[in-house]
Structure formats: C-alpha cells, structure tokens
C-alpha cells in the first residue's frame, strides 16, 4: 500500500472518530444541556413558588387591612392611623388614595417633613385604569414599579379597593401597601450557586416588567426580545411566556445566547416570573469542547506519531531491503567465489589424481602429486569449515565448549600450521612471548585456535615473499576474577588495508584485493568468523592498518585459568649460554631461563658464542647447556654448532632454537651434533622439559612425535557404514600396524561388543549417522552392557558432524573423544595414543 493511502486511511479513521466523538459528545452535551435547562426551569418554578408565596403573603396583609377598614367604615385618617399601628416594616408604607381625584394620605410623612402625610397619585398614571385591581382576596393586586411620591423611592405596591367614610358617605379609594423594590431585589436571587449568573424579572400579561433585573432591557420583555432577535416574537411564544412553564433561547443585549426560563404565577392575574442566564454559564458547554479538544489533540498526536513511526519503519525497511539486496548480492558473489574457490582445489585434486593414475610408476611424480593433492584437500577442508562456522555464527547457534587446554600446545600448533607458508614465502617471522606464567587455561580451545590461526594466516597470506611477520603474546592481570588477560598481537608488512575496506572488513565475504596478492586463496570469511569468536569470548579485536605498509591486529581475551597448573619448574643451577641476534628473544629467554634457576649468559652472534665458550674453557669450565638460534647473520646456528663441535671438542649439550620448520635442516643439524630442537617462542615449560630431556636421555626428543611404534598391534573396532570411509581408515591405520574390525552400523557394533572377549579391542571408532542404529544410540547401548570391560571401552566419535554441539552430544552419549571427518591421520594417532596413555593410568 502506498504511503499516501496509509495517510488517507489514517485521516479518514481520524475524521471518522472525531465525527463520532463530536456526535457522541454533542448528544451528551445536548442531554446535559437539556438536564441543565430542565434544572434551570425547575429552579425558576421554585423561585416562582417562593415569589408567589412572598407576594401572596404581602397581599394577604393588604387584604386583612382592607377587610378591616371596610368592616369598620373608617375614615381616611382612621384607616391611616390603623395601618400605622399595624405596620412594622421599617421601609414599608401605605397610601390611601381616592380613585376620583388621586389624592389621599400616606402612613409615613413626605421625605424631609414630619407632618406632611398628603400624597397625590395624579402624575402616576396608575389609577387612570384600575382594571388591574381585583376584588379583595381574589388576586395578587401588584402594581408596576413606580416612584413613591413621598420619598422618591422606586417601589411596588399591593393594592385593594376600599370604601372610606367621607363625611358619612362611602368614597371609593385604593389602599397601596408600598414596598421598596431595592429591598426585594436584595433577597430575590437564585439560591443555587450554579445559577448565580441568572437574573429574575416579573412581567405582567403585556410583558411589562413589574420588577426587572439588570440583564433585562427595555421596559417590556417582548420589546427586549425583539430588539436583539432575528425575528419578532410570535404570539404563540408570547402566550407561552405568560401562561406556561418552559424555556427557550434568545440573544441578550450583548448578542450572547441566553436561556430564558419562564413560569406563571398568580395565573388569574397573568403574572410570570422570568429567569435569564447566558448559556455559556451552563456547565455542559465547556465540557463538550474540552472533550472534543482533547480527543482531537490525542488523535492528531497519534496520527503524527503513526506517520513518524511509519516513516521510520519505512526508512528502516528501505535500509533493510538495501542490506538484504546487498547481502543477497554478496551471497551471490560469495557463491560465485565459492564455486570458483571450491572448483580450484577440486580441479587440482581431480587433475592430479588423474595424472597420478597415469604415472603410477614415476614415484617422484606420484609423491609430488600426492603432496599437492593433500594441500588442495586441506584448503578445501578449511573452506568448508569456514562456511560451516559462518553459517553457525549467523544463525546464532555457535556455542562455546570450554575445556582445560595448554596455551603452549596452542602456540605450538599455531607454529606448526603456519610454518609451511612461512617457509614457502620465506617470511621473516618472529614470535615473542612475555610473562606467560599460566600454561593451562579453561576455554574453548578450538575457537581460540581459530582466532589465532585466522589472524596469523591472514598476516602471512597477505604479506609478500620475504616480508616480515611478527607475533607477540603476553599475559597480564585481568580485571575478571580467576582470569588472565592474553594479548595476541600480529604485525605484518603486507599489503595493508584501505579505510574503506576496514569499515566493512568484519562483514562476511569481504576480501581485500590487491594486484600483488590477487592469487591469494581465501573465503572472505576468516575475519568475520574471528570477530564473532572474539565477541563470543568477550574479548576485543583491534586493527591498525595502512594500505601498502602493513597491518597489525591485536586480540585481547580474558581467559579463565585452569585449576591445575604445572608444579613449580626448577632446574639445578647450571651455566647456560643463549645465542641469538634477536634482542627481544634474548631478553625474554634470559628471563625464562633465570626463572628456571639457570645462570644465563648471552651472545648475539655465533662468533661471540664461540669466543665465550672458548673463554670459559680456558677457565677450566664449560657451559652446562648452550641454546643457539638457527637463523643468525654471518654465522647461522648450524655453522656455529659445527664449529663448536670442531674447534672446542667439548661435549656440551646444544639446543637449536628456531621459529621455522625443522624439516629442511633436521638432518644437517643432527650431523653437526645438535642435541635437540626447540621451537620459538620459548615457553618455560618447553625449555624445562627439553633441558630435562637432554640431560636425561640424549638424542631422543626429536623422534618421539613421529614414532608411533608403540601403537603397533592395537585392534580397533571401526563402526562405519560407508565402505570408502572404512577402507580409508582401515588402510591408514594398517600402515601404523594397527588392525581394525568393521561394524557396518551401530547395532552390529553393539552385538560385536556383546560377543567380544575382554581386551579384544583397544577402542571403538564410532560413526554417528548410520542405518538401523546410529552412533549415539550404539554408544549408549555399549555403555549399558553388563561386561565392565565392554561398557567402559573408549569410544571415539569419527563423524562429519563437526559442530561443537555435535561434540557435546557425543560426549553426553558416553563417548570419550571426537574426530571430525575428513580425518587427519596424525590427529587420529594422537587421539589413540591419548586413549592408550589414559588406559595405562
């Protein structure tokens, strides 16, 4: 749906809701207003009743006086005297006026006099027409307001006809009981506070005010109405105002809408009470607009918020779509790359295999082809592993499997893996360690290996031939309890990276390209995986790089220290000489050797070492051990050893130390009399073990790793459903003198174990995914066997399920180890040896 439609729909909904609220509010307002008006009417009626009662009360007094005066046949003077006696109200008075000449007496004297009681109504026009005065006791005979001629006060009067004795004749007169209007007005207010703005008036049947309040204009209510209405008041409404109770709206003199309530009283006399109030003082008015206002503001705010959110999400969606598009493109590119990268080693494997098949008799060619096939296979394996890892990382299923491991072994492994490339590219390589006190740590060794290997292999990969790669590893105190901080820094003089590339270098499928290294094979996943691993381990990774000059990666990890460390390593106090042109190595090596209890002297070249040894001999002494670096300028390590052996004839144990592979120099070194080999970096434990070994059993060390004769004669049960895999593993193991028996699936394996005699098998290799019974179930079944030997036999998973959770799953099922396919025979042998050693203990 287009944005405009969303807005239109929103606006329509908003308008609809507003319309509903308006209609609802309006109906509520009308209902409230109606109630208010009814209440106003009711109050007016109440006021009418009160007023009527009051006026009736006043009229009754007048009636009583009239009856008495008539009954007693009083003269005017007698009547005035009688009323003076009866009168108690301070401001009230009575006038007795003859109807024929409008003169008479007042009960109170004229203002400013004490004895002038004469009063004239000649100018008042009240008695020209006396039809408004009814018989005594029948009506409220109330006059219009008029000016009391005795005191100038605006007044009303209650009247009755009376007959006065005038010289023996009855003379018709009117008795006026006169009350000041001001006094009445003060009392005559609405009792309810809510109607305090309302004002009252009394009108006669013609609409003329008897009493009027300020908001009533004109002298006649209907004229007042007409003055401000759009149309003159009609006769029907006129009659209603006088005769009925009700209300209607009208405009006041300020043009404001008012509610006018009317109710008749003294119906026979045609009087009505009116109450007038501006409608804005009815409570309903403001509430209505307040509600609409709040709802409108709320809806508007909601609308703005919705639009803002919609625009925000639209923007996000656009970004996401862009990213998805980019990711899709990246994956397409990746697949294209993968296709290329997979096909390349596959091409090598297939091609070389074909070539080998055709030249089986050319042993040298076969050997070379097989070496190349192995390289291509390893690359393919790395590629697949990386793809799997990044897949796991992206799906969030990568779990850590912590275990005790030796950092020394990790570094050794790192060195072993990187040596071929270092050698191939003739890289100037150095590896320095500093204060590596804790050898055993508790973490996911596999992931740490991946991190270190990825960074180092990248450094080597992206460094041109004869370039330089330096690795520094140091141990520091960690802020985390029980941990050490391991800082791994790899600096190279390679192609470096551009800032643009660095901005996205941790994203998958990105590879720096450079004309110098465009032949470099890589998945573009290494850094992405490394970053994810570092994050997973709670560490940091930092990169400093300059295009064309090189790159430095620094990984900092806080790793828990394993509970068990090696016992304190101390050697007998011996004189030792270390020879290296590398100042850093000298410094760290001296520290390490001192920490082992050795007395160390150092030489920075072979020549200097020769001199020092000779000088020592002249003193009748010899160094107990000499450690010499392989690669040194002028005179390398082998030449130095050769000359020591030739010129000094001393049988001093000499160790050759190097950061490079031994394979090329091993034979020559042995011929010149090397006692043993040490790999850089120089860990205390490595040095400790090697010195002990040299001093104890000479010339054995270099052989141990590649001598698997101790495994000869072992019989292993291999549970494998795949014929080729079975063939490979059995053939490989056979070359080391290890015999195998096959179980085609888990069920057969269990049966074989049930039937096997004790000691028939040294261990079991167990595939996982197999027909009939898988490896996990088979392991559980074997562990459940009654025979203690059978149920405790070591079982090693040998499976293509290489993820960490697969490993965990295998261990949980009761297995003792895990080897991932495709198998590395050396790892297999190492695992067999580990099991064998363990079974011995």
């Amino acid at each position, binding site marked *: 749906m287009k944005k405009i439609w969303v807005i239109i729909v929103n606006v329509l909904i908003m308008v609809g809701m507003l319309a509903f609220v308006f209609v609802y509010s309006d109906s509520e307002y009308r209902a409230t207003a109606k109630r208010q008006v009814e209440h106003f009417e009711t109050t007016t009626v109440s006021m009418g009743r009160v007023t009527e009662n009051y006026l009736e009360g006043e009229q009754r007094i007048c009636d009583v006086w009239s009856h008495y005066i008539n009954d007693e046949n009083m003269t005017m003077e007698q009547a005035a005297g009688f009323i003076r006696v009866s009168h108690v109200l301070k401001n009230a008075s009575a006038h007795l006026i003859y109807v024929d000449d409008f003169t008479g007496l007042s009960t109170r004297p004229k*203002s*400013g006099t004490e004895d002038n009681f004469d009063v004239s109504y000649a*100018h*008042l*026009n*009240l008695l*020209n*027409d006396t039809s408004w005065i009814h018989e005594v006791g029948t009506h409220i005979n109330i006059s219009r307001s*008029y*000016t*009391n*001629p005795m*005191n*100038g*006060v*605006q007044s009303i009067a209650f009247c009755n006809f009376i007959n006065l004795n005038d010289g023996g004749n009855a003379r018709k007169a009117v008795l006026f009981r006169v009350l*000041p209007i*001001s006094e009445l007005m003060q009392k005559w207010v609405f009792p309810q506070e809510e109607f305090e703005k309302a004002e009252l008036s009394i009108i006669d049947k013609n609409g003329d005010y008897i009493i009027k309040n*300020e908001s009533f*204009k*004109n*002298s*006649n209510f209907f*004229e*007042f109405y*007409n*003055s*401000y209405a*759009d*149309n*003159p008041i009609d006769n029907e409404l006129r009659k209603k105002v006088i005769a009925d109770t009700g209300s209607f709206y009208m405009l006041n*003199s*300020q043009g404001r809408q008012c509610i006018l309530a009317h109710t008749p009283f003294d119906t026979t006399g045609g009087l009505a009470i009116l109450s007038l109030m501006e409608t804005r003082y009815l409570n309903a008015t403001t509430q209505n607009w307040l509600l609409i206002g709040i709802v409108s503001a709320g809806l508007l705010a909601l609308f703005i918020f919705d639009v803002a959110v919609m625009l925000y999400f639209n923007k996000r969606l656009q970004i996401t779509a862009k990213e998805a598009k980019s990711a899709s493109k990246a994956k397409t590119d990746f697949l294209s790359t993968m296709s290329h990268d997979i096909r390349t080693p596959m091409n090598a494997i297939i091609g070389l295999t074909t070539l080998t098949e055709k030249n089986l008799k050319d042993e040298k060619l076969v050997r070379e082809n097989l070496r190349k096939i192995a390289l291509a296979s390893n690359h393919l394996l790395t590629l697949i592993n990386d793809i799997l890892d990044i897949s796991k990382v992206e799906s969030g299923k990568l779990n850590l499997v912590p275990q005790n491991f030796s950092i020394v072994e990790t570094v050794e492994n790192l060195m072993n893996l990187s040596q071929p490339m270092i050698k191939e590219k003739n890289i100037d390589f150095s590896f320095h360690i500093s204060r590596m006190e804790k050898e055993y740590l508790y973490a996911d060794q596999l992931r740490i290996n991946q991190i270190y290997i990825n960074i180092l292999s990248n450094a080597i990969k992206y460094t041109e031939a004869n370039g330089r790669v330096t690795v520094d590893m140091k141990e520091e105190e960690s802020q985390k309890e029980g941990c050490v901080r391991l800082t791994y820094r790899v600096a190279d003089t390679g192609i470096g990276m551009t800032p643009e590339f660095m901005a996205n270098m941790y994203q998958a499928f990105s590879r720096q390209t450079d004309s110098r290294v465009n032949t470099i094979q890589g998945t573009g996943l290494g850094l992405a995986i490394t970053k994810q691993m570092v994050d997973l381990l709670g560490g940091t990774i930092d990169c400093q790089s300059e295009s064309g000059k090189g790159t430095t990666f620094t990984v900092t990890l806080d790793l828990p220290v394993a509970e068990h460390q090696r016992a304190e390593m101390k050697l007998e106090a011996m004189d030792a000489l270390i020879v290296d042109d590398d100042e850093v190595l000298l410094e760290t090596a001296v520290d390490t050797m001192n920490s082992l209890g050795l007395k160390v002297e150092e030489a920075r070249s072979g020549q200097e070492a020769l001199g020092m040894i000779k000088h020592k001999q002249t003193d009748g002494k010899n160094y107990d051990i000499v450690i010499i670096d392989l690669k040194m300028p002028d005179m390398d390590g082998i030449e130095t050893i050769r000359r020591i052996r030739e010129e000094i004839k001393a049988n001093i144990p000499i160790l050759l130390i190097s950061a490079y592979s031994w394979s090329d120099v091993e034979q020559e070194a042995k011929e010149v009399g090397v006692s043993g080999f040490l790999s850089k970096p120089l860990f205390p434990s490595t040095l400790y073990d090697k010195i002990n070994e040299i001093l104890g059993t000479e010339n054995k060390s270099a052989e141990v790793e590649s001598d698997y004769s101790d495994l000869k004669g072992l019989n292993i049960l291999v549970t494998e459903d795949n014929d080729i895999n079975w063939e490979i593993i059995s053939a490989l193991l056979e070359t080391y003198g290890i015999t195998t028996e096959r179980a085609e699936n888990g069920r057969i394996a269990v049966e074989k174990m049930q039937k096997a005699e004790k000691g028939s098998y040294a261990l079991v290799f167990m595939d996982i995914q197999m027909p009939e019974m898988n490896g996990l179930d088979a392991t559980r079944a074997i562990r459940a066997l009654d025979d203690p030997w059978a149920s405790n036999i070591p079982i090693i998973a040998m499976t293509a399920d290489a993820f960490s959770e697969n490993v965990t799953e295998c261990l949980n099922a009761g297995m003792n180890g895990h080897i991932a396919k495709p198998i590395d025979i050396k790892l297999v042998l190492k695992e067999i040896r580990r099991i064998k050693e363990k079974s011995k203990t």
Partner: protein
Amino acid sequence: MKKRLRLTQCLFVASLLSSCGGGNPSGTDEEFKPSLDAQTQCFIKVDGDYSNFEALEAEFDRFKEYYPNVHLSYVKIDGSISDVLNGEEAPNIFFCHPKMIGNEQYASVVSHMEDLSNPALKMNLDCIRPNLLKRDSEGKVFMVPVFSRTYGTIINKDLFNKEGIKIPNNWNELVSVCESFVEKGYKSPMMGYTNYDLDSKKERTKVSNGFQNTVAYPLFVAELAKNPDALALANKLDPSAGQYMRGALQKIRDLIDNGCVSLEECDKLEDNYDKVLLRFLDGDIPMMVCNGDTVSGIKKREQKSDTFNPDKEAYAPFKYEFYPIPLTEQGGYFIDSPSVQFAVNKDCENLDMTNEFMRFLLRTKELDNLASLKGLICSTKTTPFAPIYDPFKKVYDPVYAPFNNVASDRRISPEVIGIKDELATQIRIASFYVGRGELTVDEAVAKYGQFK
C-alpha cells in the same frame, strides 16, 4: 431686519462649527481610557421620563466591558425629579431641561447638578454642538444634551415614486403635490396627530403637541429669529407679539383648507406616537407630520406593521425618510433643539464612577451610537444626522439624511436665539386650536400670552 436675521444665523452656524469656547480643554474624543480601578463594584442609576431607554442600556453594556462589576440601571420615574433627587434613592444621573436653569421652581434640582465644565472632571464637551449646550451666566454647564429634536414629515418615497410625484422642495410644490395626491384619491396627503391627548378611556385630557405645533413652531421661531424686538416681546408674552404667529397659524389653515390635511382622517389616530407611526407604515400615507421623538420609534413599529411583516399578506415594505416640511418658498427649517439632557447628581453615591461613565459617554462614538440606537438626531458636532439602527434588519438606515440638505441659514437653534418655554407654549396651544378650527387665526393672535 434681514441683516439681523442673517447675523443671528451666522452666529448659529459659527457656533455649530466652532468648538465650545468655554469648554473643557482636558476632555478628548479619543478611545476611552479607564481611570479607575476596573474591579470597582458599585451601582449607578439613571432616572428619566422615558418609559424605555434601551439605547442607554446598550451603553451600560459597553461601559461594563471596562468595569464589569459596576451595575447600571435606567429607571423611569413617575412624578417630580425633585422628589426623587431629595428622596431616599437619589439617582446618579437624571434627565433635565434647560428651562430649569435660572428657574426658581427648579432651584432644588439645579442645586444637585454638577458643573460638568469643571476642568478637573475632564469631560469632553467639545464633541457636542455648541448651540445645544446650555450655559449659565458664569459659563458653567450643568447638563449635556444627548439627542436633538426637530420637526418635519416622514415621506413615503416609494409611494411618491409609484404615483410619479416628486418630493416637494417649497411651499408651492407642497400644495401642488397634495393636490396631485388628492386627485389620485388620497384623502389626506399629509397627516399628523391633530387631536387632544386622550386618556385610557379615550377622553380628552390636554392639548397635544402634534401636527399643528410641528407645522407652526418652526415658522414662528424663524419669524422671531428675524426680529429680536419681536422675540423680546414674545418672550414677555406681550399680546402684541401675537401678530408674529400669524404667518405660522395661517399655514396650518392653508394646509387644511387646501386639502393637504384632512382633520377627519387625522382624528382617526388615537395617539401621537404608536398610532401615528403604524398608520404611516400602512403605506398609503404620503407624508406624516411629526417630530424627531416620534420618528425614533419607527423602526420598532415596523415589527408591528403588517406591511413590513413578510408573513402577512399585506407585506409591502417601502422606503421612507424624514424631511423638513417645505412651508416657505425657500423650503423648510432645521430647528435644532436639545431633546434629552443628562445632569450628574453631585450628591450621589459613587460620584467618581458616575463621572467616569459620563466621560465614557461624552464621546462622538458613544453619543452617535446612542442616537443611532434610539433613532434620534445626534447631538454631536460631526454627525448630527447619523443613520439610525434597525434592530431587525441589523442595518443602519439614513432616515434623517434629507436634513443634510437644509441650507445653513435655515438651521435655527431656539436656545441660541433665546426662545423661552412660555413662548413655545403659546404657539403650541394657539396652533392646536386654529388647526382644530376652534379658534380663527385672528382670535388666536389676539389671545397671545393668555394660553395656559
């Protein structure tokens, strides 16, 4: 004689155009600026003899915009203003008349009047036409006119158009027009109230101030304005001054005798206000003679007339205006005399606020508004013939506009030339009887000074 008349008229015109010489220089006609505490709470009462003064009540509302807690009311008083002023509820402001000044009979009333020319009060007397402003011998101003009254005839313009007759500009044209209307079947082309004032029982009470006086008074005043000696005699009620009424009285007879006015038709009017207006609004009377006070009620009477009621069959509204009656060859007169005057009771409660209200009122804007709503000629200098307000159509109607065309030498102010009330009474009664045929012109002239 002519020179004297012109001199007098020039003085009048000059006084019309000039500001009030001895007036208060402090008051201004600018926007009203309250000078008292806006929250002041008090009562102000205006007493007068208008039965209804809605226009003033509208001014109360406007004043309350500045002082919302001031309660103002208008009270129609019965009887003597003296009684009220000396009574227990004395007003703050009251209606008064110029004749009160210097008249012993009204000494107690005048004694309550505040000198509005006192500079300390900052009253803006300059906005009022000076000829309407009554000053005592010391130049003090005790009352201010809020309206002016004049004499004339309401003319049904549509009827003239319908009959193809031109509105007359002089005496001969007037007679001719009347003849034309009579020929077309109109029984009384001119009408007015010619009868006695009647009470509720339709019994004669006193001589009315109707048609006869409306015709005769302007002519008599104009005659006296020409002759100061005659004016002096007339003011003294010297019988010899009766001859100066002759021309005016004869005009009444001429109008009746020439068929311009039918007494029979006029006698059908039952009062000198409602009935006069409603009869005119019936639409078949070309000219209704009356004064400005009567005209003031015409807009409200439209509501009561079937001719102006769209719901009635007789609905046939028409245009009308108030004209000077062209009783001479030169046309008619504008007799500019004060109608209602306000005085401030200096002894009242809340005198400060009372003066504040007067300051508010005595500005061209408010006085024009007051006159427009009341339907009377305004007392201000700048806009004497301001349109009057029609409350139903919510529009202003220039009813008095024809008076703008009256030449300056035909604008006469009785107060300026010194006409006294007693003199006015003589011409009113004499003209009434002559018009009714109860006295001949000669008899009436001979009785000058004896009419009560």
